[in-house]
């Protein structure tokens, strides 16, 4: 097997193993209901993690996405409360804003040669502050269209519900896989992650690609914000604090190299589902503190970083020999 597939294989193996352990203890976890809920509950995280994967593949980081999700929720809620616009129009407007916001950060990163960490950190505060500007309260969304979205699902055999937002997440992952692995833009992203100077020598338009990468991440954060607002039927400026870090964790557990240049969008989906599975297990158990989720995620992260370091060393040793 190609060594670049090892981290992905490890992710899938860990996920399956975790599931087998869960099912042995709680056979009901094999049901489609649990599967359906897993997809629904983690839809917003899965979507934003796709954007994060592309950013991390390019060697960057986007800390603003959690705030952008919160801003999106508040923006939608306030717009629906105060104007008569149809939700679809509000969604379109929001996606333009979120994409533009990401593009602006990408442009700053390139034009000023600033580290993405700093620029997106500023973006994080900016988006969170903008959400507070709109409202400081939780604003409920009460719209017939939202009821429609909420009730849209496909009943799987076994009465599990594949909800619309779960489906949107799966579609987003598929689109992300094509963008990252099957387009010239995706090739440029990997090239940037492999080394900017070399990428430039090979003819990558560095500026344009950087802007597109962060615009894509912004778009994903906006979409995730829409999904989150459907999921919670409200907008709250204090929502999704720290989601950017959860997304980064999912990307790394999914086998993407944090330094960029290697990884898989599909692995990110598995990373998100692994984290969701641990959460589900704790809910099933009932007696465990939910903090165990964090501890296990921490351990998994550590394990993957060690795996990646080990792989790097193996590859180096073989080339050197």
């Amino acid at each position, binding site marked *: 097997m190609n060594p670049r597939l090892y981290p992905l294989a490890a992710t899938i193996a860990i996920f399956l193993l975790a599931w087998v352990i869960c099912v042995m203890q709680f056979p009901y976890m094999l049901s489609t209901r649990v599967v359906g809920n897993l997809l629904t509950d983690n839809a917003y995280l899965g979507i934003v993690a796709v954007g994060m994967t592309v950013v991390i593949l390019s060697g960057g980081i986007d800390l603003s996405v959690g705030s952008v999700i919160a801003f999106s929720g508040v923006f939608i809620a306030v717009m629906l409360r105060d104007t008569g616009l149809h939700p679809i129009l509000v969604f379109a407007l929001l996606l333009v804003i979120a994409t533009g916001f990401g593009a602006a950060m990408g442009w700053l990163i390139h034009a000023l040669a600033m580290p993405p960490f700093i620029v997106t950190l500023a973006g994080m505060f900016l988006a969170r502050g903008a959400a507070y500007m709109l409202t400081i309260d939780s604003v409920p969304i009460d719209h017939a269209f939202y009821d429609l979205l909420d009730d849209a699902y496909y009943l799987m055999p076994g009465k599990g519900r594949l909800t619309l937002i779960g489906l949107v997440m799966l579609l987003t992952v598929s689109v992300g896989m094509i963008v990252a692995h*099957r*387009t*010239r833009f*995706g090739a440029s992203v990997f090239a940037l992650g492999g080394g900017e*100077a*070399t990428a430039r*020598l*090979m003819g990558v338009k560095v500026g344009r690609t950087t802007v597109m990468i962060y615009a894509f991440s912004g778009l994903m954060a906006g979409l995730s914000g829409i999904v989150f607002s459907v999921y919670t039927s409200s907008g709250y400026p204090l929502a999704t604090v720290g989601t950017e870090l959860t997304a980064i964790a999912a990307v790394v557990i999914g086998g993407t190299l944090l330094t960029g240049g290697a990884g898989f969008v599909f692995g990110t989906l598995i990373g998100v589902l692994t984290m969701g599975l641990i959460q589900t297990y704790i809910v099933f158990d009932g007696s465990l503190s939910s903090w165990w989720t964090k501890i296990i995620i921490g351990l998994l992260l550590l394990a993957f970083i060690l795996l990646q370091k080990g792989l790097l060393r193996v*590859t180096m040793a073989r*080339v050197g020999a």
Partner: protein
Amino acid sequence: MLLTIRSLTKTFPGTKALDGVDFDLAAGEVHALLGENGAGKSTLIKCLTGAYERDEGLITLEGETISPRSTSEAQELGIGTVYQEVNLLPNLTVAQNLTFGNEPLRFGMVDRRAQLRQAEAMLEGYRLDIDVSRDLSAYSVAIRQIIAIARAVALSGKVLILDEPTASLDAREVETLFAVVRGLRDKGLGIVFVSHFLDQVFDLTDRVTVLRNGQKVITERTADLDRVQLIEHMLGRALKDDVVGHAKAHQAGREWPELLKFEGFGRRGHIAPFDLSVGEGEVLGLAGLLGSGRTESAELMFGLAAAHSGAARDAKGTLDLSSPRKAIAAGFGFAPEERKEDGIIADLSVRENIALAMQARRGWMRPIPRAEQQRLAEDYIEKLDIRTSGPEQPIGDLSGGNQQKVVLARWLAMNPRFLILDEPTRGIDVGAHAEILRLIRQVTAEGMSILVISSELDELIAVADRVIVVRDRRHVAELTGSEITTDTIVHAIAAPDRDTTEVLA
């Protein structure tokens, strides 16, 4: 002529990197471009590949004047370049690397199968049997180099520039690479070959152009040259009195009290174990071509690389030279060759740059009082005649020669017993050159021992009491007193390899 360059000139602040250089490349020839560091090779190549814009001169390709402004523009014109290492991405597959930017598309998506076919077609004729769907990092540097050539040829196809392509290859890999290069030459490509391995130059190339200090020295058929002539052209031989002043009055038989002794000091892959004794107040010269092991010797002595074997002693006992900190504690100093990268901190002031090493030795717990720093800086600005608007001027604004003087001041302020200067006069003007040589003589008269590494033979002859010749990462000869002449040094450098083995056997 495929490619003609006429009176190419490129000036950087403080230095003329290229000064009216002419260069011709015929289709179907391999043309070596030689010269020491700073001779202008890389500037010439960067003007060709669009990394730099030339100030003056003319470049014509197949009769048309060209002025590429970027690497990709040069590529489209037909000039492809393969650098030593950085031109492909190890995290992509071979096929992705080869087709990057020209991926076959189907419905807007990359057609993987067509991509593999295209990559295999590009590698045809290179006698490589590899799986193009594997990551590039799975293959050795030699194979990567050939893949890089295949990509450059496919994209450009007229002129191929090979910039030190063999630096990290072993002998058999070099042969494989050369077979590929000869094949391309026979297909009618013009190939520029940059290398500091003279054997390879004689083995592969049809003509040679030597650059020195930004000027063309000669262009000659390789077959008409021998090693000695070539090295003379590269290092220069005519003594320039105005630059170096009077050659050192060599006091035959003069003995220096021994200060340091290195015994069997060496590191695998860097420099073979050598013995060296350093006298108090003596100036040692280290001569050899670029890549011969000069800088490696110095780095080992200063603890930048740990020695695998041997030991260093002084009168009191064994010295610990395992890190620069310990070397400094032992009274060593080192002014590196890459002044801009390793020697100065451009944003800090002259005063801060001078106080740097001294502060490092005292530790951050005991800062040097500002007044003391000020006194030190003013003292050395006067003593070394550093041209600056004052101690607070950022060192980056100074000319090369004055930067070098600040670096010297930093070490002189430490008053080391053994100071290593790697190419102390690189990239500085004639006047400053003479002053630095005068300074070296002055401080050694006061008892400091100095090791000078230089590509300028005249310089070594002018200051050194003893010259060590380095070749192929070995110390091969030691010349003292009246033995130190251009001829003896050049012959020691040029001696073919088999002589070395006999001497060492």
